[in-house]
């Protein structure tokens, strides 16, 4: 069912008698596979308000991210959290929507410095599992009026409600971008160098380890970027051969391009210094990369049994603290294992009680996040 408006979403959800698969652009085939009627909100689309002077944009949930980014670019602004596009990794077609971005808290390399999608979400409107239209937050940058359901909806993968509209804080675009690259680094060496850089005053806006190279990004006014890149280059003396690049393609990092084509892919969030331990503990043949200074590990299976790797990754992460999500895998694997990191009992109890309140009939993407 393609719905056209928030009122349509509410009516459809209220009248639903079984499971609904909530879909925006259809680019995120993540989670436990669900049998259900598709609720397609991609036609609930359009930018409702954009105030560059207030750094605010409000858009209906089905609005393509590309449309928002193009609109912002005309005013020399951007989405600071750098949402990734999963079509290449997952082999999906379609257009990533802003509702999908927020529902999955999709954030890219700049997350380490600037924050996640949830940190830029100012307000939401959504339809809960009973068909009620709910709003929370608003369109102003500071708002502590009542409980923060904006955060709760961010990263809830459509299991608590169907987003109909989101408002976001945006930031100015930058004049210049440079990347300091150090080739031939092990994961441990990479995290050491990245931690030094991120712990400096030089405002590193991306710190990744990709194809064995460390990438450190600097953004801002041209003279400032040059100054900070040089300062970090000097700071990292003794950490390998450092070269400055003006054309490093951060989409490679954002969208995990080196892992495209793999059958099974995990996205792991841990304390940055634990990144190398996650990689070292992998049982099968894998390709890996790190973002967020080591705090985000991308793993792609290149040989061996994905189910064994899955268990190994999630149990390793359980001991380290953090979470591992199977972002891509055969449907039978996703149906058999906890795709999202199992939570400790106390947290799991709160989570399931919240689900029961927001979706009492259990019809919104039921089981998608089941752990």
């Amino acid at each position: 069912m393609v719905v056209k408006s928030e009122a349509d979403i509410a009516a459809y959800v209220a009248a639903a008698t079984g499971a609904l698969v909530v879909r925006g652009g259809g680019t995120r085939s993540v989670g436990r596979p669900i049998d259900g009627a598709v609720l397609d909100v991609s036609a609930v689309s359009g930018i409702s308000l954009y105030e560059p002077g207030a750094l605010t944009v409000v858009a209906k949930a089905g609005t393509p991210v590309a449309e928002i980014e193009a609109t912002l670019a005309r005013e020399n602004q951007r989405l600071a959290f750098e949402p990734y596009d999963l079509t290449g990794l997952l082999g999906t077609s379609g257009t990533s929507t802003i509702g999908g971005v927020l529902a999955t808290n999709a954030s890219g390399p700049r997350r380490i410095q600037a924050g996640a999608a949830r940190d830029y979400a100012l307000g939401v409107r959504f339809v809960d599992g009973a068909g009620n239209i709910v709003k929370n937050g608003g369109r102003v940058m500071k708002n502590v009026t009542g409980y923060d359901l904006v955060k709760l909806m961010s990263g809830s993968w459509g299991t608590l409600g169907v987003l109909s509209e989101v408002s976001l804080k945006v930031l100015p675009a930058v004049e210049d971008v440079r990347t300091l690259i150090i080739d031939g680094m092990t994961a441990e060496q990479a995290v050491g160098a990245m931690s030094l850089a991120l712990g400096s005053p030089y405002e590193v806006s991306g710190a990744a380890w990709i194809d064995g190279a460390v990438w450190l990004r600097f953004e801002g006014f041209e003279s400032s970027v040059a100054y900070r890149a040089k300062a970090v280059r000097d700071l990292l003396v003794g950490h390998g051969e450092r070269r400055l690049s003006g054309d490093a393609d951060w989409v490679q990092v954002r969208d995990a391009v080196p892992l495209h084509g793999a059958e099974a892919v995990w996205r792991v969030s841990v304390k940055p210094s634990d990144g190398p331990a996650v990689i070292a503990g992998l049982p099968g043949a894998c390709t890996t990369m790190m973002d967020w200074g080591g705090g985000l590990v991308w793993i792609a299976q290149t040989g061996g049994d994905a189910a064994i790797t899955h268990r190994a990754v999630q149990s390793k992460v359980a001991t380290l603290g953090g979470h591992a999500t199977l972002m891509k895998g055969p449907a039978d694997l996703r149906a058999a294992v906890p795709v999202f990191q199992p939570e400790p009992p106390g947290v799991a109890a709160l989570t399931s009680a919240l689900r029961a309140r927001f979706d009492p009939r259990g019809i919104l993407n039921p089981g998608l996040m089941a752990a």
Partner: protein
Amino acid sequence: MEMPIPDSTVLARKIRVVERLRGVLPYDAVIDDPMETRAYECDALTAYRCPPMVATLPSSTADVSAILRICYEEGVPVVPRGSGTSLAGGALPTADCVILGVARMNEVLETDYDNRFVRVQTGRTNLSVTGAVESDGFFYAPDPSSQLACAIAGNIAMNSGGAHCLKYGVTTNNLMGVTLVQMDGTVVEIGGAHLDSGGLDLLGVICGSEGQLGVVTEATLRILHKPEGARPVLMGFDSAEIAGACVGDIIKAGVLPVAIEFMDKMLIEVCEDFAKADYPLCEALLIVEVEGSEAEINDQLALITEIAKRHNPVALRESASAEESARIWAGRKAAFSAIGRVSDYMCLDGTIPVSELPYVLRRIGEMSEQYGLPVGNVFHAGDGNMHPLICYDANKPGDLEICEEFGAEVLKLCVEVGGCLTGEHGVGIEKRDLMTHQYAPADLEAQMAIKDVFDAKWLLNPAKVFPLAVSQSRRGMPLAAE
């Protein structure tokens, strides 16, 4: 202010409750003498006072768990308290409550520069978190004006902001994990030293829940390396409209200062008298601060002052030294106490879209005439978080009521123009009854559903956030006017 009738069955069990609490806590951690419980009768919203039945001062998460378990079993309401600096009455006791004050829990538990976080007990003050790491060059970014006194516990409860959140965000953007004790004593760990949640973002809901979902005893906080330097520039204008237009142009130009603060003439005068920062006396003053190396600061300020000059400033002065910068900020951060020296006042905290600043300031001026009470304005101009300070005379009968009515009208205006009731102070009891102006019944129902999940008996921080009539059936208690 309407408050629930104290539960007489709870009051009747005071001796038993105190005995049980003394069974799990040292003698001096349980305060039941009415002379001493009066110390907890209010927070920084001093217009409302009510001594609690008992106050407790736990030293550990285990203590907090034991206190909450006892109160849960006894059906006793609990009011969590950090340092008691809430401007919204967020820690106002009820007569039948147990105060749970975390002031004794102020240790730094873990410092990790490689991973850029600290883990602290939440009774620790905001400024002393920075104090623990600044000798190594690091700081904790959220900086509410009360940062010398306010506790991390209260910062988390209210999702506190500060002058520098334009760049660094508010508490929720700098909070990575918490140890939460639920009302029944259950301890859960949420988040940690890693980023983002693998499941539902419970951390995001707990932050800003005004102590109504659980008691946060430990927190993992993001720390950052201090910038190489920072420098504010003062800009004076002939009107708030011109200052507002200048702010818009600065933001649109792509330069993002760490802070853009606004003061009107009344506040300039009282803050100058207090801090001797040599503020230019004018209708509207902006303090704009940028950070970076010396050269970066010069570049950014050159751009900013060029923009300012297009708006015909009556004053334009960069800070010439670290001492001068400190005085400039001391004046701004002391704004509330400075005005408190000359008048009783009520501090509002609504946020509006920045484009509405001139209109809202004009309307506030008109209302000031209409209600016959002077208003000073000081606020975070970059993000539209206003702080109108309405002056009144607490000794003049009826003045507080007029002031409250005036304040309510201002906050309704904030909502009307697309803003909200509170940007960083929280709802507390102060804005509780205005919640229906911002939220429809279904919106409040969704928020209360969360409270139901975390605190089914509705015992934690009673009578805050939700209008009593809206929450009545959940609390199962009768209403009474005070």
